[in-house]
């Protein structure tokens, strides 16, 4: 039986790319902590993962000239705006403490996913070697 790498690695590669995207978003939120009018953005991780697992709702077109509607995919997750707890007068909605906490959590999750992935690779390698 041939080894299928995509199946063997499971959902972890997709998680990894999603965590990478999210860290970019959080980094740009933090970078713009002092920019007037900047709105903090984030992705709904749970929803993005559910879409990655395939349970997503499709729009039904009842007329041929209807627009299809953009279905957010794992590689292009839907970007949401953060609801600020205490918006500042200059229109900036970045709460740098919150963003820092989210960034740290995201980094830990990324690292955890890496650990799972390297476990998968170790398993594959020992299967190939037949030890």
């Amino acid at each position, binding site marked *: 039986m041939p080894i299928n790498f995509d199946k063997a690695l499971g959902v972890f590669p997709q998680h*990894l*790319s999603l965590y*990478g*995207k999210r*860290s*970019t*978003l*959080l*980094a*740009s939120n*933090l*970078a*713009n*902590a*002092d*920019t*007037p*009018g*900047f709105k903090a*953005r984030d992705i709904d991780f749970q929803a993005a993962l559910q879409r990655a697992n395939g349970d997503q709702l499709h729009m039904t077109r009842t007329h041929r000239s209807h627009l299809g509607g953009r279905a957010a995919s794992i590689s292009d997750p839907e*970007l949401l705006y953060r609801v600020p707890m205490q918006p500042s007068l200059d229109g900036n909605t970045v709460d*740098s403490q919150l963003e*820092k906490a989210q*960034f*740290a959590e995201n*980094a830990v999750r*990324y*690292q955890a996913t*890496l650990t799972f*992935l*390297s476990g998968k*690779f170790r398993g594959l390698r020992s299967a190939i070697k037949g030890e």
Partner: protein
Amino acid sequence: MSLFNVFDIAGSAMSAETVRLNVTASNLANAQSVGSSEQSTYHARHPVFAAVMGSLRDNAASAGVAVSGIVESQAPLEQRYQPEHPMANEEGYVFLPNVNIVDEMANMISASRSYQGNVEVLNTSKQLMLATLKLGQ
């Protein structure tokens, strides 16, 4: 690899905060530079930050920071009656810069904290990337 964008973003923020620190330093240094007229006296300067959207590859939502300009404060200058001062004008007044030391100190602390935060982001991303490179070894 989207983590590469973090370097651009955090780097742009660090350079913007450096500009802010520079401007603060120049304001503090010139807090006592008197002049003999409204025009020739130093005015407090402040950087204006703006988000740079979409210029970074593939991810339009991520945004770096740029300094879109430096504005001079239009607050009125303080005039002091010092006829013995060499810079005094015909009426005996010298003009003091409209630098608010307390504002500048608060600005300085805010800029250095933001800089530190961005350095942390950069370091964490670097570690994550290095760990990703070691994957499967």
